[in-house]
């Protein structure tokens, strides 16, 4: 049955995506949470009550809602709120770096693999190899060679997520390669690089953005994991993973010291997931209406 044609619905595509997004309650919630998380990370130096490394030996392990320490203090008397704000900042830094790496490496490889058949086999085998290689061993190896640090954690996490990005971009390229506007460009003898850059990449951007919102929370958790194991960000720089690791020693005396950073990780991931899902639905409304 042919779908009804609603003539009024010829608005610009950007307006349509935005309208669709605003109709999705969970998506709006995710978006708001995302803005709050981003604001917390960006403004941490100005809104944090203390320096995250400042110790208060006289007031260790204070409960939340203590005067002067809204979320309490840890075993060294450091303010948990300030550490969470800075930890979020570190998490997002690693997240953005890793996602950027996965896009910069993954998108061109995915485009090339999808467009040129002969490259496909090579890239796909490399992808399988990366996927088969345990990510933790990669991270340990990198930490051993270059030392444990925020940027090395981001590199390890970025490399670990390159295959996902390659697969998504490759699939999108394969789909778009058959589009008539690509055939039209090919019959002009336009070069492959030109077609990829002017027709396929711009049309694949929505998928890349959606995939980035999927990788982001995975990277945030990955960073917490690496820092927890001592392979990522090094103390005294605050990280949500380090906070968890420190807090586990006295988890029965001060459960909030572990709960609060854990909650922060959850909020960050949930914000990205909800917003990413809503964005995917808004960019591809055909599948759900």
């Amino acid at each position, binding site marked *: *049955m042919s779908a009804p044609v609603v003539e009024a619905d010829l608005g610009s*595509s950007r307006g349509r995506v935005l309208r669709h997004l605003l109709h999705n309650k969970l998506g709006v919630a995710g978006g708001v949470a995302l803005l709050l998380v981003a604001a917390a990370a960006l403004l941490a130096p100005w809104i944090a009550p203390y320096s995250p490394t400042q110790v208060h030996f006289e007031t260790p392990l204070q409960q939340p809602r203590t005067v002067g320490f809204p979320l309490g203090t840890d075993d060294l008397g450091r303010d948990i709120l300030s550490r969470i704000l800075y930890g979020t900042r570190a998490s997002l830094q690693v997240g953005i770096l890793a996602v950027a790496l996965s896009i910069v490496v993954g998108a061109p490889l995915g485009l090339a693999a999808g467009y040129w058949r002969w490259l496909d086999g090579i890239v796909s085998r490399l992808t399988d190899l990366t996927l088969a290689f345990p990510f933790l061993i990669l991270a340990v190896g990198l930490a051993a060679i270059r030392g444990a640090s925020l940027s090395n954690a981001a590199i390890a996490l970025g490399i670990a997520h390159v295959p996902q990005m390659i697969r998504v971009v490759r699939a999108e390229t394969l789909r778009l390669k058959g589009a008539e506007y690509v055939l039209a460009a090919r019959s002009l003898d336009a070069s492959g690089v030109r077609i990829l850059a002017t027709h396929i990449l711009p049309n694949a951007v929505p998928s890349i953005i959606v995939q980035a919102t999927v990788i982001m929370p995975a990277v945030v958790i990955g960073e917490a994991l690496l820092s927890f194991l001592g392979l990522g960000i090094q103390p005294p720089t605050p990280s949500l993973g380090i906070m968890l690791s420190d807090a586990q020693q006295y988890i029965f005396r001060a459960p909030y010291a572990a709960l609060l950073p854990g909650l922060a990780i959850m909020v960050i991931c949930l914000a990205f997931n909800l917003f990413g899902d809503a964005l995917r639905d808004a960019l591809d409304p055909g599948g759900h209406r």
Partner: protein
Amino acid sequence: MSLLKIEGLDVAYGSSAVVHGVDLEVGRGRRVAVVGASGSGKSTTAAAAIGLLPGRGRITGGRVLLDGEDITPALQGKDERRVRRLRGRQIGLVPQDPMSNLNPSARIGRQVAETLTVHGLARGAAARSRAVELLEEAGIPDAARRAKQYPHEFSGGMRQRVLIAMALAAEPELLIADEPTSALDVTVQRQILDHLERLTAARGASLLLITHDLALAADRCDEVVVMSEGRVVETGQASRVLREPAHEYTQKLVAAVPGFGAARAEVAETREVLRVENLVKEYRVRGRRERMRAVDDVSFVVRAGTTTAVVGESGSGKTTTARMVLGLETPTSGRVVLDGGRRDMQPVFQDPFGSLDPTKTVERLIDEPLRVFSVGDGRSRRERVGELLDQVALSRSLAQRRPVELSGGQRQRVAIARALALNPKLVVCDEAVSALDVLVQRQVLQLLERLQVELGVSYLFITHDLAVARSIAHDVLVMRRGQVVEAGKISDVFDNPQHPYTRELLSAIPGRAA
């Protein structure tokens, strides 16, 4: 008393009304066609009558009477059980797309038997044997064996027969067929419609046929209801509506039906623009030893300022031929000789929604060929885009729009402007007007004709529609299973077809027999 009576029906999707006060009547044993362009509300009206409005669609006014009983409240969702009893038992539905309306993982026989079980007409072995009978009646040869097969083992026409068998399983009094053959080739279309006609007549059932094809409607039905923009504009005897349409819209529709007008005037022999010699394309088929010949020894020429049409049904190799001419596929053997270079040949494709990159503005779309060949600078390119927009009769103010903001006909004009940007000698049109409504189709064909006269450009015109070929082409090739079965001047081939397949194709065109 009439079987189905629709009075002042209003239907809305969300807050936008799409059907306004439609009146429609189907008498017992009568065949009624609802004709209209896409968006005219014809499918929506049919869907409303059977309670199958998609998404947020709902009946907002009017009444639907079936056999004198007001079933409007039930259709509005107040009595789901009544609607279920209605569907299948009283009204059968033959859907448009035979590909997506069968479960690919269930055997055909089981799917037909399920229809019987659902309506409580038969169960178990009885349902299975009745299913085979129904398939046989629907014209499926060797039905007992084929009932054990899966949908992918059936061709499109055969699947449509299965769907007809299912729609008729519960012996409904009314059959609604929504574009039942628009996805099928003309020769198959004729067989299916013949069969549908026989089956409904044998059962004394009524038929409500939804179609965009006025000629087909007039051929197959007693009465025609013409819809436009959600309203009924004309109702009447099929032959009368086609011969002397009263409403202005119907008049335009009748005039736009291709093939009714005269063929194009012959032109003097001019020089060759394209020569195709013994073109062959073979594909390897998975699991088979021998290779499949998609295009088998095809030769033809296109002369300057003329149109050569390549006509054929699906699988005839016409699109593969076009792609080899365009250099998108490499021929297995044979040659394509073009007078000039790559830039002298440009394509226009079928899908007005898929042929333009949605991320680019109209200006960027049209000047892409100029950029690829580094013609001129920014200013001269902008000037050229303006000229091209004038030539295809689009407003220059559309230059900064994107494809989503354009209608199907406007998009196809943009695609034509783009193809003309480099002043090519040859434009390859691959089903360029097939996805357009008949009125828009007519306008685009007229545009192509005018541009040919003004610019002297040649067309290689690939189409499945013989009537379209007749109205645009000077020469024609008829293809079947990769081979050219007949070729020549359009008037010779149409008025005096030599090959039996050409004759079959011609006689299958709706409206031609009348």
